[in-house]
C-alpha cells in the first residue's frame, strides 16, 4: 500500500547510514548514466558509422572513450561498492559506522570525481582509464582519481573496523557471512590498490605537476596492472556477495555451503593480486618466466569462481524445489522469474559463464597473443564488469532503493524489461566484438574515421560490425529503461507502508561457533599476511629490477 508522501529527504534522514548509502549509490549511478550514454556512439563506431563529426560536446572518439571508461569502470563501480559494501555489513552486524569518517570519504571522492571529470571534459586528459605514460594528462585527472581511490580505502578501513568491534563483543562466534565476505573484499582491495597508488602518487602526479621530468612507461604499466587485475575482483566480489548471501533468500532457498563460500572468498584474497602479468604478456620488459608464473597463478584464481557457480546453482535449486519445482530441470521454472531483482541477477550470472570462459582465454599466455588489444577485450569485459557486476547491481537497486527510500519500485515490469534488454544487448555486443577481435581489429580505435587510402581496411568484418552496431541500439534502450525506473522510483511521491518496505534479504544462517576449521577460516589477519607474502614473491623481483633500471621518458599530449 502506498500513500502520497512529502519530499525525499524526509524518509532517509531518519537513518543517517541509509542517507549516506543512498548518496553513494546515486552518485555512482548518475556517473554510469553519463558514461553509458556514450556507449552507443562507440558501438556505431565499431559498426563503421562515425557520429563524432556531428557532436559538439565531444572533441574526439578518444575523449568520449576516456570518459566512458573512467565513469563506468572506475567511478560507478567504486561509488556503488562504497555504498553497498558499507551498508550490508553494518546492517548485518547492527553497528553504526563513524558517520563523520564516512561522509568525509564521500566528499573526498566527489571532489575527486569532479576534478577528474572536468579534466577529461576539457580534453586535457584523453588517456583512457588506463592512462599509460608517456600519454600525459592534466594533474587534475590524476589527483582526482587518486582521491576516489583514497576515499574507497577509507570506507574499507571503516568496515574492517566494524568487524573488529563486533569480534571483540562476540569472541566465540564466527564472523557473519556478509561481513566476512565484505571484509575480505576490502582487504583484497587495500592490498591491490598499492600498485596504482604508488604509480599515481610517486610518479604521475609529480610528473603532471612538472616536478618530475619523465616516467618509466614499463614500470608504470606494471604498477597499474598490479592493481588492474584485482580491481576486477573488487568489482565482482560484491556481486558474489549478493549471489551467495542474498539471492538464495530471494529464491526461497538457503545457502548450500556456508564454509565453501567463505573458502572461495579466501582464495580470492590470496590469488587476486599476484597475477597481474597476464595483462602484460606482450610487454618486452617482463621476463618470460615470470609471465609464465603469473599465468599459472591465474588458473588458480579461476577455481573459486567455479566453486561459486556450483554453490550458487545448488542454492537456487534448493529454492526452486522448495517452491514446488520437480524433476531434473523443473526447479528452474519454479524460480521467481517474475521478480526483476531476481531475474536481473540470474541473467548476470549467465553472462559471467561466457565472461569467465573468455577470461581463461585471456589468462592463457599463448592464446592471449591472438586477442591482446583487439576488440575481443572490450567484448570480454562488457559481459563481466558490464553485465555480471552491473546487472547484479541493477537487480540489487530494485529492492535496495525502495528499502532505503521507502518508495515503491516504479514498475517491476519495466525493471524486468530493462534487465532483459541489457542482457540481450550485452550478449549481442559480446558476439560482435569477440568476433571482430578474432579478425584482428584493434580496440580503442576510431575505425569509422580512417584516412581515405585506408578505406576498406576492415571490410572482412562486415557481419560482426553490423552485429555490434545493433547491440549499441539495444543497449541504448536498456539504459533508458533502467534509468527511467530508477529516477521514477527515487522521485516517486508515494511511500510504502512499513510492512511493505523490502527488508535486506539476508540468507538464513546458523550462528557458527568459532572453532576448528571455521576458526581457521575466520583468522583473516593471518590469511591477509599470506596474501601479502604471495604478492611479494610474485612481484618483488621484477619490480625491484624495474626500479633500479628505471628509464624515465618524456610525456606527450597526442590528442
Amino acid at each position: 500500500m502506498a500513500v502520497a508522501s512529502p519530499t525525499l529527504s524526509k524518509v532517509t534522514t531518519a537513518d543517517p547510514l541509509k542517507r549516506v548509502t543512498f548518496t553513494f549509490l546515486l552518485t555512482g549511478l548518475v556517473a554510469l548514466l553519463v558514461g553509458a550514454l556514450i556507449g552507443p556512439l562507440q558501438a556505431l563506431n565499431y559498426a563503421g558509422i562515425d557520429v563524432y563529426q556531428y557532436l559538439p560536446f565531444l572533441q574526439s572518439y578518444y575523449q568520449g572513450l576516456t570518459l566512458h571508461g573512467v565513469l563506468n569502470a572506475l567511478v560507478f563501480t567504486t561509488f556503488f561498492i562504497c555504498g553497498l559494501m558499507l551498508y550490508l555489513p553494518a546492517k548485518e552486524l547492527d553497528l553504526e559506522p563513524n558517520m563523520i569518517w564516512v561522509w568525509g570519504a564521500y566528499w573526498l571522492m566527489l571532489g575527486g570525481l569532479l576534478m577528474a571529470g572536468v579534466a577529461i571534459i576539457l580534453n586535457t586528459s584523453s588517456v583512457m582509464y588506463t592512462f599509460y605514460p608517456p600519454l600525459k594528462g592534466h594533474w587534475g585527472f590524476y589527483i582526482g582519481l587518486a582521491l576516489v581511490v583514497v576515499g574507497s580505502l577509507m570506507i574499507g578501513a571503516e568496515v574492517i573496523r566494524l568487524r573488529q568491534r563486533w569480534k571483540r563483543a562476540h569472541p566465540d562466534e564466527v564472523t557473519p557471512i556478509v561481513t566476512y565476505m565484505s571484509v575480505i573484499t576490502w582487504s583484497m582491495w587495500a592490498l591491490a590498490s598499492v600498485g596504482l597508488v604508488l604509480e599515481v602518487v610517486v610518479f604521475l602526479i609529480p610528473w603532471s605537476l612538472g616536478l618530475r621530468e619523465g616516467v618509466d612507461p614499463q614500470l608504470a604499466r606494471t604498477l597499474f596492472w598490479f592493481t588492474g587485475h584485482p580491481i576486477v575482483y573488487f568489482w565482482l566480489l560484491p556481486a558474489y556477495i549478493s549471489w551467495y548471501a542474498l539471492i538464495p533468500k530471494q529464491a526461497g532457498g538457503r545457502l548450500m555451503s556456508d564454509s565453501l563460500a567463505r573458502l572461495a572468498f579466501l582464495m580470492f584474497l590470496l590469488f587476486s593480486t599476484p597475477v597481474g602479468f597476464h595483462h602484460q604478456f606482450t610487454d618486452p620488459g617482463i621476463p618470460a618466466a615470470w609471465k609464465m608464473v603469473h599465468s599459472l597463478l591465474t588458473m588458480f584464481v579461476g577455481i573459486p569462481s567455479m566453486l561459486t557457480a556450483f554453490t550458487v546453482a545448488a542454492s537456487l535449486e534448493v529454492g526452486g524445489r522448495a517452491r514446488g519445482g520437480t524433476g531434473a530441470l523443473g526447479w528452474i521454472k519454479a524460480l521467481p522469474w517474475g521478480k526483476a531483482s531476481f531475474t536481473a541477477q540470474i541473467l548476470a550470472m549467465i553472462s559471467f559463464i561466457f565472461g569467465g570462459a573468455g577470461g581463461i582465454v585471456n589468462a592463457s599466455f599463448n592464446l592471449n597473443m591472438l586477442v591482446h588489444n583487439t576488440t575481443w577485450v572490450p567484448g570480454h569485459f562488457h559481459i563481466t564488469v558490464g553485465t555480471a557486476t552491473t546487472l547484479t547491481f541493477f537487480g540489487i537497486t530494485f529492492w535496495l532503493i525502495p528499502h532505503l527510500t521507502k518508495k515503491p519500485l516504479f514498475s517491476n515490469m519495466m525493471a524486468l524489461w530493462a534487465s532483459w534488454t541489457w542482457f540481450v544487448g550485452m550478449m549481442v555486443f559480446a558476439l560482435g566484438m569477440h568476433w571482430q577481435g578474432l579478425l584482428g581489429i584493434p580496440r580503442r580505435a576510431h575505425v569509422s574515421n580512417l584516412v581515405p587510402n585506408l578505406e576498406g581496411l576492415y571490410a572482412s568484418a562486415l557481419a560482426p560490425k553490423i552485429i555490434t552496431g545493433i547491440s549499441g541500439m539495444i543497449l541504448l534502450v536498456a539504459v533508458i529503461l533502467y534509468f527511467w525506473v530508477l529516477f521514477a522510483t527515487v522521485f516517486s511521491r508515494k511511500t510504502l507502508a512499513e510492512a511493505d518496505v523490502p527488508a535486506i534479504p539476508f540468507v538464513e544462517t546458523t550462528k557458527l561457533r568459532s572453532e576448528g576449521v571455521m576458526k581457521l577460516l575466520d583468522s583473516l589477519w593471518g590469511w591477509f599476511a599470506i596474501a601479502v607474502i604471495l604478492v611479494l614473491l610474485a612481484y618483488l623481483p621484477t619490480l625491484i629490477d624495474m626500479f633500479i633500471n628505471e628509464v624515465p621518458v618524456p610525456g606527450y599530449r597526442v590528442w
Partner: protein
Amino acid sequence: MDSQNGSQHDPQHEAVERWERRWLAFSGLLSLTFVILITYALTVEGTHIAQLSDNGRGQPEVLLSGAFFENPGVRALGLNNYQVSLVAQTYSFNPTEILLPLGAEVVFYATSRDVIHGYQIENTNINVELIPGEIATFRYTFDQLGTYRVVCNEYCGISHQNMVGQVRVVNPSELAEIQASNGLEVGADAGMVGEAVYGSNCASCHQGEGQGQAGLWPPLGEHAAHLYNAKGYLPKLLLYGLNGPIEVAGENYNGQMPAWRQLGDDEIAEVLNYILTSWGNDAVTENFEPYTAEDVEPFRDAALSPDDVYELRQALELP
C-alpha cells in the same frame, strides 16, 4: 563440510555434497589441463614472445641512434635469415611495408620513438607492446604467402586508427623484381629517393598524393610552396615536428606532426624537393632551389620542440 549446520542424513544435502566433490575435482583437473597445455605450447614454440633485446634499455634518443635504427628496414643475414629493425611513432611504422620471401625466418628488433604503440601482425601470433625506452625482440617464420595487415593496437593518439603497415610475403623469384620497382635493395643500407621517403613516412598522414586529412593534416599541394618562401622553416618543421592548431586555406588542422630527426640530411632534402615539385607546388614556388644535405645539416643544432616550431610559424605569420 558443514556438518555443524545440523543437517544430518538430509538426502538432498548429501547429494549436493557428492556433486560438489565431483565438480571440485573437475575444476581442478580443468585448471591442470590448461596449465599443461600452456606450458607445452610455449616450450615448443615461444619465440614469438617479445623479450628485451641485449642492451635494449635506454633513453629513446639513445636507442634510436644505435646501429639498428638509423636505417629501419629489412636486412638479409643469410639464406632465408632476415633481420627487421622497426621504429613505431605517431602515426606510422618505419618501415611501413616489410617485404620478405616465403619461408623467411625473421628476427625483429622494434622500439617506439614517443608513446607506447602496439604491433600486431594479422594471421600470426605476433603481438607486441612497443615501449619507448625498450627494444623488443621476437622471431617469426613466414611460411605462408600473402599480405599481412599490421596494426597499432595500443591507443597512441588522435590518429591511432590510421597507424597501419603491412608485411608482404612473396615467392623468392618475385622478390627481386618487386624490390627493384620499390627502389630498395636487400642487404644494403637503404638509400631512398624523395618519393620513397615520402611514401614510407609522410603518406600515412598527408596521403599518397598530398591530399591531407580534414581536421588533422593539411594538404601539401601549394601549401608547401608557400612555406618554402620562409627559408629555413621547412627543414626545422621536418626535423622537430609541429604541435598546435593551424589554419591553411581557411581550414583548421590540429593533428600532431612528429619529428623526423631520424631521417638523414639527404633524405630530408630529397623529400622536401619531391614535395615542392609535386601537386602544383612547382607552379607557385618562386625561384625554387633544391635543398641539399648541406642546407639541412646546420638546423640540427637548434634543438627545438614541436611547440617551438609552432611559435615560429605563428611569428612568421605563415599561411
